[in-house]
Each structure stands twice: as C-alpha cells, then as structure tokens.
C-alpha cells in the first residue's frame, strides 16, 4: 500500500503528456494501425484508457476482403504480412466500429487508405467532423496493394494528396504515415510537412519476401509482404533520426516513431532519436499489455534521469563521447 502511494506520487510529478498538433495526449504510447483491430479486441487484457491514443486498422471507401492466404510468415526477428487492407469499408466503419471507438475513453486516430485522391477525400471528409475521430492518419505506404505505394514514394504525388486532404480536414489532427521503401525519406517527409501535415508517423513496414524452398514458391500468396518486428528497429530508428534532424525539428512537427518496439528501452531510443510519441504494433500480437509495460518502464526511466517531462527526451540524443581523438 505504502509502495502504491509512492508510485502514484511519483506519477503525479512526471508529466507524460505530449502534443500532436492540436491534440494533447496524456502519454506518448500509441497503438499502431493494423495491429489492434478497431477497438475493443484487447480490452480483456488491459485498460485501454491508459493508452495515449488508439490507432485503427485502415479504412477504405469500400469494404475489402484482402489478400488470399497465406498472409503472414515469421522471419528472423520479425514477421512479414500481406493482409491487403482487409477492412469493413467506410459505411460499416462509421455505423459499427466508430461507436465502439468513441466508448474507449481514449483519443482515436483513424488510419485511412485509398487508391486515388478521391478515395482519401471521401473517407477524410466523412470522418473529420465526427467527435469520435481525434486524428486521421494517411496510409500512403501500404506495400501490399498493387498501387498502394505511389503516394508514399513519389514526393510530388504525396504533396498533391496531402494538400487536397488538408483542405477537407479541419478538426482532426492530420498525420501522414511514411514509407521506408524510398531512396530518400526526407524528401517524402518534407513534401508531407510542406503540404500541411500536422504530424508524421514513421515508419510503415519494409517490403520483404520469404520463399518455401521445398516447393520453390513464395510463402505469401501476395509474393511480397511488409516486414515488422524487432528486425526493423535499427532501420526505423535511423529514419526517424534523419527525418527529425532534416525536416521535423526545423518545422516543429512531431513524429510518432514506430518499428519493432517491444519494451521501454526501445521506446526511449525512438524518443531520443527525435520522436515525440511511439507506436506499439507487432508486439501487441505477442503481448497485448506491451503498451503498459512500456509506460511503466518509461516513467521509471524519467524518474531515474531526473526528468520532469517526457517531452524533454525528444531529440535529446547526445554526440558520442567515445570518439577517437582527432589526428
């Protein structure tokens, strides 16, 4: 009991809140689109109200069945998925899923996907006015649909998309989720920010492949899939660092960092590299309570380092002190 009191007193001293554009979150730990359904799937495992925000599976204008199975495969330190944006479609999302989301007691970010600018406009214009929607995250980087990568890899196409969507998104925070499958991610990041994005989330999965050598066939029916899990963490961290330095920091735009986060230490790495918040994705499949674990560890870390606010961690990375002497 005494220990519990001490913990809550400490919690009161440490400020975990962060801002994503106009949206204030009580803490920086979010779920990642496509790994947590539409709302209450993980309710039996944790109090979802303890999350900073909840991000839904992608919503498209029309219902999508998704790709044929096999849709996933485990690879070293991660997994490939090729779900193919299976979702209930905009109408059923609004009628059936949004009421559940609005009862979660946590800001809901809806991930939006499409094939054309009109697709994105239709979904965003319909969802933006709704109170239950705190944020709209543009999925311009799904590697598992035939033309899903165009907006995510072409800075000009992305600029046009974000500009037009920005015009219809008046209430919700507009987040653009970046693809890592590009030569220069700062180009797409700059394009999104210059066109009006309030926030960047990064990164989506890396395109990968697995082969069944006995059958001499691809394991996934879709041939390729998106790689997630701890295998991609160092890659994601590097991209967050790059975008923070080159684009986000100068523009004052927050980054939601994601890619293989399994524990508080991973989360702290992303914050130090420049993220304002972090997303927990694939780890939810293995332990749905991972966000709570991360939060507890993060709070403890801040206390140990005498930091009053989690915001002090963003971009706090210091130069390496073990540099060899010059000359």
């Amino acid at each position: 009991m005494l220990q519990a009191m001490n913990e809550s007193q400490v919690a009161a001293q440490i400020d975990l809140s962060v801002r994503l554009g106009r949206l204030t979150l009580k803490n920086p730990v979010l779920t990642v689109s496509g790994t947590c359904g539409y709302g209450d799937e993980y309710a039996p495992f944790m109090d979802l109200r303890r999350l900073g925000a909840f991000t839904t599976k992608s919503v498209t204008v029309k219902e999508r069945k998704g790709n044929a199975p096999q849709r996933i495969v485990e690879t070293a330190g991660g997994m490939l998925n090729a779900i193919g944006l299976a979702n209930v479609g905009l109408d059923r999302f609004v009628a059936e899923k949004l009421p559940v989301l609005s009862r979660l007691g946590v800001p809901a970010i809806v991930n939006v996907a499409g094939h054309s600018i009109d697709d994105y406009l239709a979904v965003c214009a319909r969802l933006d006015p709704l109170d239950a929607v705190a944020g709209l995250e543009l999925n311009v980087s799904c590697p598992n649909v035939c033309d899903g990568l165009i907006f995510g890899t072409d800075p000009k196409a992305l600029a046009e998309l974000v500009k037009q969507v920005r015009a219809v998104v008046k209430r919700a925070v507009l987040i653009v989720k970046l693809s890592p499958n590009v030569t220069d991610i700062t180009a797409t990041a700059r394009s999104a920010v210059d066109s009006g994005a309030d926030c960047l989330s990064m990164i989506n999965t890396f395109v990968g492949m697995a082969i069944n050598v006995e059958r001499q066939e691809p394991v996934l029916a879709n041939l390729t899939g998106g790689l997630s899990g701890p295998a991609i963490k160092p890659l994601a961290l590097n991209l967050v660092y790059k975008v923070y330095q080159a684009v986000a920091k100068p523009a004052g735009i927050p980054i939601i960092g994601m890619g293989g986060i399994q524990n508080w230490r991973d989360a702290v790495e992303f914050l130090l590299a420049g993220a304002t918040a972090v997303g927990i994705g694939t780890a939810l499949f293995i332990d749905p309570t991972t966000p709570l674990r991360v939060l507890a560890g993060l709070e403890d870390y801040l206390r140990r380092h005498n930091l009053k606010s989690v915001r002090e961690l963003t971009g706090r990375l210091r130069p390496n002190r073990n540099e060899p002497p010059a000359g």
Partner: protein
Amino acid sequence: MERMEKDDVVTGAAPGSQVSGSRGLFLSRVVRNEPLCREHFRLVLEVDDFPPAAPGQFVQILCAEPNELGWTQGAFIRRPFSIGGLRRGGRRCELDILYRALGTGTRWLSRQRKGEPVSVLGPLGRPFEIHADREIAWLVGGGIGLPPLIWLAQTLSAAGRRAVAFCGARSADFMPLTRVAGVEIVGEQPVLAFEEFASVGVPVITATDDGSLGAAARVPDVFARYLDQHAGQISSAAIYACGPEPMIRATAQIGLAHGIPTAVCLERVMACGMGTCQSCVVRVHDAAAEEGWRYRLCCTDGPVFDAREVVWD
C-alpha cells in the same frame, strides 16, 4: 538481453493490466513435457485462475523465454495450440497441449522442463457446439488434429453421449495416443485401444497410411465404410472433425452428403489469435457478399466452423 531469475518472471501480466472477461495472459508452469511418439510431445501446464474454456478452443503459447523486457530467444510470434484437456482444482488449472516439435518454436517448447515458466494467452476462439438432439458423436481426427477431439470425447462422455472416434496417422510411430496394454487393434473394429479415449469409454477405429496400425487406409474412407454399416444411426449422429485439411474436407463432404451436422475445427497460420492481425482467413459462403463468399477469421469466428458454411475448394 539479460535473463531474470525465474522467481522474478511475471510475464503473466504487465503492471496495471487486468485480466477480465473470458481470456487473459498467464504465466504457466510446466508440470510435464514428454514425448508421445516420434514427433509429438504432451505438455501439461499449470495455470492459476484460467477462465472457463471448452473443447475446440485454443491457446497462444509464447515459445520463447519471458523476461523483464518482454521476451527473448525462441520464436518471435506466438504459436496456436488446441487445448487437449483441462482439469481444475481450486484456483489451479492444468492444460494438456499436444504438439509436434518441428520448428523453432515447438523445438524450444520441447526443451522446457518441469517448473519452467511458459507464457499462455487464452482461451481463444469458439468451441464445439454439442448438438442437443444428437445422442451419437462421431469424432474424426488425424495426427495433430486429435487433441481437441480428446477433450471433446471427455466432455461428451460426461454429458452422457455415445461417441466413436476415428483416429488416423501416417504410421504407428506417428500416432500421438497412449496404447492401452493388452488391447489389440484389428482392422476397422472400434476398440478401447487408447487411454485418452478409453478412459471415458470411447472406442477408437484406427487407420494409418502405411497400415502399421489398424486399417491401411485414410480416415475418411474408414469413416465412410462405418457410416454405410451404421446408416440407421445417421439421424441421431453428429460429426466433429479435426486434422489435416484434406482429411477434414473429405469428412465434411461425407457429412454434408448424408445431411449430418458436421463441425470442423480448422487450423491456419496466425499471428495474434485475437482478431487483430487478420491473417488466419477462412473462405465461407455468403450470398450477400461479392462472388458469394467472404473471409472469416479462424481465430475469432472459428476455429470451429459448421461444414456447410466453409467453401471447400
């Protein structure tokens, strides 16, 4: 990552997490873990406060060492296993898991010894429905599909139903069941040959691909012949099937052709087991859907499906 002392391992639940409703995350302990035949192991786990569960449901087991930061080594994503039996005593519950030690995850599992911690998520999925008006149960299973049928046989027996099991394997040394000493298996005769079924009075007809045990035949063929000889029971029987997909499909087709209620317990590659990753899809008929079918999820809509709704292609 450093490994913690076992006593400190609390992967069952993160700080502040709650275990409510019908499922949860548990840190179990190994009670027994022993080979049953050439590839199969029987694992008994003890768990406290495991929620109510029924045959057909499954658990997701983390085939890796739980530690302070989450988990490490072994397999990355959890592996689904049917619950093959469940015993309760006070808060304590024992779960029977039958598995084949084939890949990274299951080989890790096969190395776990008595007392070691194993993280279990469950119970998951929808169980078999026991038909109220069908007093005879025909259990048709093969290989690693047998565990849910073992537990189902126990449940049916307790509910006063008559059951006959049809059990298949590649050969005698791949049959994941315990022989009853002194009971001979002859051809396609139902006999109390295996402890798992005999203990609840359920006779088994055995088939192997190579004829090294029971009939040299595929299980559905043996089942079809039995059906012909027991046509009078068709109106009072139900079929429960689990095993390799071709076996299930053939059994479902027999059941459907005779108008017998047929429940099939399916297996799919899955990551979460909770309806979020959307990977474990099963094609089902739906007249309202485009092309007359849609996907349902094995993990939350199944793994038990009515054979009539599945698209058998």
